[in-house]
């Protein structure tokens, strides 16, 4: 990263703006206040036209001269300071390092600026939304928690990476995949298959499914991290590849799909850069057990949490399509959920040899 050219980024200016808020307010004898967009369900709307979850206009004031907020305000300025330091040094860092960087004992006291990382993480999100800067732009990365294989050639820090020649382990997707860090030089695939679970991605990778069906296999090991979502989005946008999402058949699987497709509630402002409104839900559908003859005994009884979550999903505006209401209600009425792994009940290679081929052939997916 060291050889990246140093640019006085817009982000840096935005961060310095936090200091200006304080300075200007002090000059005018006003209480320094940051207006932070509210990050909750009540402040997002689903834009039917572009299919994205968008953040509303509601903001909350964070003022310094308010006993309840003073500390948070101070911490926010502290985090802005640390983020600005990253910009100037052109380094990237993790959430945890930000926490350590900003933690110290306040002068003349025995109080820490921060006590746990739980305090600094939301502040970074606050700054992202307030400054309208992506986490990548703030140079904060997550762990590399995703993998990719397939007919794809990338350049990472000047190194050429051919994702067709990395064995079954594939390439570990970095958390920042913006063009200045990662270039896509060649891509001959027909589509992207984003798999929720690492185990099933392994299965497909081992079976060289990507070669047979000429696709890119991506996984995020659960809720896909930003790097994986961003890479899928870039492949979709730059290489015009359709994206299919393969998740467990449970409310969490549905939600993972929806985050990929429409964006998340918490970071709705990023939908613009992350979401893939045309992504398709290929499975596991609540109709599949019947269509594919999965025995009832490989299902798992929905627990109270699952049921509550499913009901929440039913209420989200972006799940109002008739097909989706049917899909979720079918799961609820069956009272069962199914893991992708359950397909192994029929055959170890059932996913590779039967399930996906048939799904693709029948174009059996949900939008």
């Amino acid at each position, binding site marked *: 990263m060291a050889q990246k050219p140093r640019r006085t980024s817009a982000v840096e200016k935005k961060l310095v703006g936090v200091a200006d808020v304080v300075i200007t307010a002090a000059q005018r004898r006003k209480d320094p206040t940051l207006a932070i967009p509210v990050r909750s369900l009540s402040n997002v709307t689903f834009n039917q036209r572009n299919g994205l979850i968008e953040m509303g206009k509601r903001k909350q004031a964070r003022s310094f001269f308010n006993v309840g907020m*003073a500390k948070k305000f101070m911490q926010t300025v502290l985090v802005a300071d640390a983020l600005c330091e990253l910009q100037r040094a052109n380094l990237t860092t993790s959430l945890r390092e930000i926490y350590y960087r900003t933690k110290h004992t306040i002068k003349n006291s*025995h109080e820490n600026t921060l*006590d746990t990382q739980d305090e600094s993480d939301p502040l970074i999100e606050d700054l992202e939304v307030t400054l309208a800067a992506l986490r990548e732009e703030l140079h904060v990365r997550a762990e590399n928690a995703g993998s990719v294989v397939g007919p794809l050639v990338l350049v990472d820090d000047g190194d050429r990476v051919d994702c067709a020649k990395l064995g079954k382990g594939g390439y570990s997707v970095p958390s920042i995949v913006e063009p200045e860090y990662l270039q896509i030089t060649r891509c001959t695939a027909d589509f992207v298959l984003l798999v929720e679970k690492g185990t099933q991605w392994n299965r497909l990778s081992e079976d060289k499914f990507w070669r047979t069906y000429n696709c890119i296999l991506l996984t995020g090991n659960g809720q896909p991290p930003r790097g994986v979502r961003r890479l899928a989005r870039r492949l979709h946008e730059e290489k015009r590849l359709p994206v299919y999402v393969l998740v467990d058949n449970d409310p969490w699987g549905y939600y993972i799909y929806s985050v990929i497709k429409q964006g998340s509630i918490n970071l709705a402002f990023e939908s613009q850069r992350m979401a893939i409104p045309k992504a398709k839900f290929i499975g596991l559908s609540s109709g599949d057990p019947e269509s594919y003859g999965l025995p009832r005994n490989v299902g798992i009884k929905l627990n109270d949490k699952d049921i509550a979550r499913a009901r929440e999903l039913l209420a989200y505006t972006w799940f109002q399509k008739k097909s989706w209401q049917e899909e979720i209600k079918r799961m609820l009425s069956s009272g069962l959920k199914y893991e992708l792994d359950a397909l192994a009940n029929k055959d170890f290679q059932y996913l590779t040899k039967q399930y996906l081929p048939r799904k693709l052939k029948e174009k059996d997916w949900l939008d």
Partner: protein
Amino acid sequence: MGLCLYGDMRKLNPSKTSPPATPPKPAVSAVEMGARQRDISVSEFFTKNRHLLGFDNPRKALLTCVKEAVDNALDACEEAGILPDVVVKVEAVANGEPPLPPSQASRFRITVTDNGPGIIRQQIPPIFAKLLYGSKFHRLRMSRGQQGMGISAAGMYGQLTTGKPVQIISRTSARAPAHYFEVQIDTKKNEPLILEKKQIAWESQRGTQVTMEVEGRYQKGRASVDEYIEQTIIANPHARLTYLTPEGETKEHPRTYPQLPPSPREIKPHPYGIELGMLLKMLQDTKSHWLSGFLAGDFSRVSPRLAEDICKAAGLSPRARPRDVHGQAAETLYKAIQSTKIMAPPTNCLSPIGEKAILSGLYQQIKGDFYTAASRPPAVYRGNPFVIEAGLAYGRGPEQGQESQEKQAMPLAEGEQQQDDNELARVIRYANRVPLLYQQSACAIFKAVLDTGWRNYGVSQSRGALPSGPMVIFVHMASVWVPFTSESKEAIADYDEIRKEITLALRECGRRLGAFLSRRERADSEHRRRNIFELYIEEVVESCNRLKGGRLPTAKLKEQLQKMALARTGGEKTDELLGKNGGGPEGLPHSIIVTSEGVEGEVPALIGEAPEGAVSSNGAPEEEEKTAKPSRRTGKTRRRRGGKQRTAGKPTTRAVRRKA
């Protein structure tokens, strides 16, 4: 000492027990059995049942011996109108073996010396070596001792466990000689055996000294001798008590209250307070010739008219001979008495400690930030007048608070927390000024403390538990007859009337504590607000400066922000809340508030010490200090307080500057 001897003896007497219903073949004939019957002396009885008198185990026995001697010393002094000056000495005795540290020793010598009236020569042997011999049993008057059993039982315990006699020195005046006695008890006969008696030279002009050697165990902590002494001081601030510990320390507890409690009057029993058996006994013992005369003469609050009314209600002649009233007639009389409306007994037989003295005792003995005391007016249970007094000491004291703040100076690591201790309040219980150290949970006082809703007063409390926090709860019951749950005088029985009075007294203290806590809370939160802004301004300014590439005029920004902070935390108002302008414990009667700035309220002045350092540091003229008695304790200072002299805001408010 208390022992329901009558009942126990009856149980013991085999002649009263009925024979087994239908013995197939009696193993022992009635004649044989008859031959085995014989008298049991009190002392023999006690030898087998020492637990009834508080000698269950060596540790408790040591405490009981000290307690009996000290209680007697205080009783004697008070009755004689002398301010008590008592010295308690407890030493480990080697007993031939190499000396052991006190915590491992099993034998102790206890010496208690008082400056009381002394005991005349002839009385010394029976007082110390005859059970059930005393001056307090046959009267209804508030005192610590009742039964005439205490000191002789302690002596006998010593005799049983070490074989050593009790040694007594007593002198009744400077002109009289001092008598030295060594006595033992003849347990068969319950009579004193005099091993040695002589006149000796004694440095004291008047008083009594008793020395006993007993088997015991010395261990500090709960229900220890040390705790007994400490708690005795709290309830008896008019006494000077010197405690020479087994470890060789000398703990001086100066007198902190200058007056003897008013001497309680002796009263006759109130008719509501006696049981049928007692009535029968009184009917037999009375000197009156007529029933009406007996009723009017032997009871309190029964006028001749009322006596006639009672007789009429019972269908008995007022002229009946009391001795002839028994059986059914006595029972009818008893019922008639109970259903007649009789005025409550007089209360001048009681001598409560008083709010001022309780405050004084708590303040001297317990570190805290807040003290209060409340006495209830006299009340009556079963014909016995009683008074409940409660007190509270709350907090750790300003020095402690500072110390713990210093301890926190180390930055906390993740997961570490500022330790908030969940210590529970300590309840200290008293009956007629004697601390009750055992059987807490059986006691009406303890139950009343649990039942009080402490949360209403800003103190946390889990269900069915003591309130938590640095708090000592003091409750005293003064009565001519304290109803104990058992012979060993350890817990007060749970009468509704008593419980109610305790609860009312506790609530009053609780309310004052609540007022204090909320006032402090408000002040603290203002203070915290101000602190918060001041602390964070520094951080914010530094961060802004770094964001601005180090080119920020930081001093200016800081100043601007600080000005705003001050304006927002209401400068003077906060000072007021913080008590910096001399608010005093207004609205909180009989209370003391201690802050690092000083002490406010009814602060007791130490007695018998020359006022030193009368010039205060702020140059206040001498006159201003006339109500305050600057004092300085030298040497064995138990507690120190620092702080500035605060000028008294009200005439009743005294402020004391103590030099640390």
